[in-house]
Structure formats: C-alpha cells, structure tokens
C-alpha cells in the first residue's frame, strides 16, 4: 500500500487508487481543513470526528493517547526506513475491529460528501479537468457521439439513492458506466451540479474534437471569435445531436415511416435545430412580440443567471422550482421576486 518512494500513502490517495474509484479526485487537505467546506456534514455522517481525524481521512494523530504517540515516533523512524504503514495498522489493531469498520465506512461516506463539494470548487474542478483531458471518465456509449468524453455525475445529491452515472456533453444525456465496478459507487459523491458546472467553467473545450485532436493543445480548445449563444459557443451546444447524428430506422433500405406502428417516435430526443439561432428564445420572442416590454426578454443577472419570463398570459410564469431543496433555490426565488 505504500508508494515506491517509501512515503506513507495517505488515506485519500489509497482510497482513490482502489478499483472502482478511478473517477474520484484527491481532495486537498487544505480543502478539508477549512471548516467552512464541511458545514453541515457533522450531522450527516456517523462518527464524524473519528472518520475525519483519527488515522482516517486527514491522518491526524490523536492527542489524548500517550501510548499511540510514542508508537507514532517509532514509526516515523521506521517510515524513514521505508516501512510505512505500520503506524496506522497498529492503531487499527488497538481498536475493536467492528469499531474500525464503522469508522472506515463513515470515512468513505464523509470523503464522498466532501468530494461532492470539492469538485465544484476552483481547485477541485481544475483537478477533474485534468482527469477529463486524460480520458479517465471514459467515452459516451452512443454510436453517434463518436467516443465523446464523458463526466461522472450523480442524479441525486443525497447518498444512498443512486450510483454514479456518466454525463455526455455531446448529447446532453446520462449513461450507466460500462464497467460493473462503478455500480457500487454512490452518485451523490459526484452530485448533480458538477457535470453542468464543468461545461460552464470550461466553455472553451472544443466538444467537436476527437481522438488525437483532443490531446493537441491548440485543437482541443476553441479559440478566438467563434459565435456564442445562450452562454455557450454555438458549436459546443450538443454537437453530436441533429442531422447526420440521428438514427434512421430502415428495412431493406427503405425508411420506416412515422405512420407505422413501429415507426420512429424518439428522434426529437436527438434533434438539434439546423440553424442553432433558433434556440435564441429572447430574440425570437422579441420578433414575435415587437410591442412587449424589455422586461420580458432574458435577463442576465450577475453575469450568469438568466431569469426567463414567458410571454404574457403564460400560466407557468410564476411557477416555482420544487425539485430541489438547495438553499440556492431559495435565494434565487427571492431574487426573482424582486424583479
């Protein structure tokens, strides 16, 4: 378990090197040591303190145990000799085995929940971008996505609800990871926000590039004056949807008609307007309603939140988001009510 250099491997790096944990970033100790980042986790994880400190995530030594401290000094000498892991092992032996397995699983839960937050931080999302560039998250299984690189996501932020999935930026859909070893990894450890936040944070990854092109520094990035729409480079909006990327069912060369009972019903899911500007709702709305007030167009709040309002008479205008309990929803709703 110790690395070749003889330096003891931390709990975090050994956790991340386990089979099935390939998608995880290594959360920095700096991030964990900032109490602010851990707000609210005490109540979510059993044996929180033990999981965090005593020989687990942070590898902090207990201060109230003289005997163990002595052992630790011994071990420092030993680790200098390359025998690294004994400190933790011996500490482990001094505990009840059942206690340890509870703490170990608490530590995994805690690490996962911290990880969900970390990969949405500046340092964490940067680390995930390096893994993305190296192809650590695999490729979209959809044939028409042509091996587009995917991102690990959760469909829930609450642990225990669902396993990790892969989000494909080229078709904006989610898939089950191909290898069954990921089917025990909790999706909440990646969370609902990371996938989309990644696209917003790194808008200039050129999603139309494949293979060796993505490894070349210049081609992998969109440069200069590419047109943008709705906050994205136009060419990066679901590039593997639309004409030429939609499966057309055929029998002996003849297209199966929509009118047939077995005819195509799902092509809309893979469609994309041939003129992407058709997605410029604010412009279209203004064109169709030349007399409407400016207020009805999309508004850009703080550079990144758009408050959309539908045309007058829309019953949905005041409908609230009900699907998430995040405090952000409240503040945004509050913001909207001021408009």
């Amino acid at each position, binding site marked *: 378990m110790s690395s070749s250099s003889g330096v003891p491997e931390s709990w975090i790096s050994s956790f991340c090197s386990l089979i099935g944990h390939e998608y995880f970033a290594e959360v920095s100790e700096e991030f964990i040591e900032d109490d602010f980042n851990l707000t609210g986790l005490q109540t979510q994880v059993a044996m929180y303190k033990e999981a965090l400190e005593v020989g687990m995530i942070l590898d902090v030594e207990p201060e109230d145990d003289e005997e163990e401290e002595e052992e630790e000094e011994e071990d420092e000498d030993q680790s200098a000799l390359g025998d690294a892991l004994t400190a933790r092992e011996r500490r482990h032996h001094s505990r009840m085995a059942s206690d340890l397995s509870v703490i170990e699983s608490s530590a995994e839960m805690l690490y996962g929940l911290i990880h969900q937050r970390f990969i949405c931080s500046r340092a964490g999302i940067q680390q995930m971008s390096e893994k993305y560039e190296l192809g650590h998250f695999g490729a979209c299984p959809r044939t*028409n996505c042509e091996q587009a690189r995917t991102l690990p996501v959760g469909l829930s932020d609450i642990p225990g609800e669902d396993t990790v999935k892969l989000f494909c930026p080229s078709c*904006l859909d989610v898939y089950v990871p191909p290898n069954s070893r990921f089917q025990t990894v909790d999706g909440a450890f990646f969370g609902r926000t990371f996938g989309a936040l990644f696209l917003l944070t790194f808008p200039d990854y050129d999603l139309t590039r494949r293979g060796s092109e993505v490894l070349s520094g210049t081609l992998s990035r969109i440069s200069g004056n590419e047109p943008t729409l709705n*906050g994205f480079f136009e060419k990066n909006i679901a590039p593997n949807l639309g004409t030429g990327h939609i499966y057309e069912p055929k029998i002996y060369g003849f297209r199966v008609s929509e*009118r047939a009972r077995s005819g195509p019903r*799902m092509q809309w899911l893979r469609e994309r307007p041939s003129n992407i500007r058709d*997605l410029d709702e604010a412009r279209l709305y203004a064109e169709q309603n030349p007399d409407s007030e400016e207020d009805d167009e999309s508004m850009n709040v703080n550079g*990144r939140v*758009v408050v959309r309002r539908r045309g007058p008479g829309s019953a949905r205008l005041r409908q609230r988001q009900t699907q998430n309990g995040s405090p952000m929803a409240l503040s945004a709703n509050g913001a*909207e009510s001021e408009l």
Partner: protein
Amino acid sequence: MEDFASESDSDYTSYWRDWFISSRGNEYFCEIDEDYLTDRFNLTGLNTEVQYYQYALDLVTDVFDLDCDDEMRETIEKSARHLYGLVHARYIVTTRGLAKMLDKYKKADFGKCPRVMCHSHPLLPMGLSDIPNLKPVKLYCARCEDIYNPKSSRHAAIDGAYFGTSFHNIIFQVYPALIPAKSTERYVPRVYGFKVHAAAALVRWQSAKRDDMRRRLRKLDVDTGFRGDDGVEDDEEGDVEFEGVDGGRMIAGADGNIR
C-alpha cells in the same frame, strides 16, 4: 405465432455450430437450423463472397473431411465463420430466426441500454451496413430508438453485416406487442438546482418537435406510442436558469454565488 417447440435439431449433433455459438464473444449469434443451411436457395450468392466456400460450408454442416495442413485448416475455419455470419443475417429475418433472436432478446443476451432513462431496456444487435467488412456490430434500443457501441471489445469487433440493417426493425413489425412504451423522461443538466440555459433552450425546442409529432400522429389516428398520451406536457418548471458568459471564460463560484 407458430409453435417451434418440436425442433428437428435434437436429431443432429451440430458440433461446429454448437462450438461456434458457445464460443466466448459469439453470444450475439443464434444457432442456424441444419435445414436452413442445407437449402442451397438460402445461400444464393454467398459462394462468391466466401473463400473456399464449399469446404467452409462442409465445416459448418459437420461433413468436412479434407485432409489438409493447419494453415489451410485455419483459413477454412475463418471462411466458415464468415459464411456462418452471412447466412445468419439472412436467417434471423426468417420466422424461425426471429423467434430464436426474440428468445435471446427476452433474456437480454445482447445487453441492456446504457441510457439511464431507458432503465436497462434490452438491446438488439444491428448492422449499419449489409455489406461485410464495412462496419462493426452496434446495439439498438427500441425504447430510445438509438444505437450504442458494445461494451466488450470482442463484441465490438464483430461484423455488423452478420446482423444486417433490417432485422432489429423487422422484429418489431412482426411482434408489435414488443414495442416498448416511449417515454418523455429525460436528463436536464443543472447547476445548484438551476437548469443550464443553453441546454434548457434545446430541451424546449426538442419538446416542441415531439409535441408536433404527437399532434400529427393523433390527427392520422396513429398510436403515438407514449404511455398515457394525453397531450399534457410535463417538463417545464422553474424560471431561473444558469447561463455561461458569452465568449469569455468564467469560473462559476463553487459557493453558488448568486444574488
């Protein structure tokens, strides 16, 4: 459908075909009947497609008795596999072939759809071309009507022409009861609970396309295929959406710094 319970297969011992379909990597193939293989009509045109055609056919039907060296044997073996694949594409669109593939489909022998919203719907093998050596086999999901790459590299190397471009569509014409109900359930990317504007705009546009199709079909009195299709749309909620910054690079605050 007809009853295929009484098979003539059990009267024969089909060594080569037994070996072939039980070999690792050949899970997508069903066993072609002796009767079908020995009817020359079914093999029309394949003699020019397959090297050492007669020896290959003899091998597939267990009557091969040529005394030859290993190299020759290997060449004929390869031809036999190719011949089997080409006949397979024809066989699986016969009544019996469809029924055999249906059994495998029901057992999910071809795998399950990787798309999360398809909830592990079983897949069917398909080719993007009927001409051999052009495109490897793909997997079709009748629920999302899209095609996927096989997970295993052994399967990904199989010639798609051994399944053809029509089989996976014909099976649903022959067994319309098997057509899965279509679903509007889909993934919408979100940041701190808010939809991403660019993706949400595309979703709205696609939903409008879908509603147009439903109206078109209802007018023609054709089954739209969506369960509980009452025309009520379900995917709109919330007015606040995230947008990136036009042109420029941005770092969205991890603290969700929205005011």
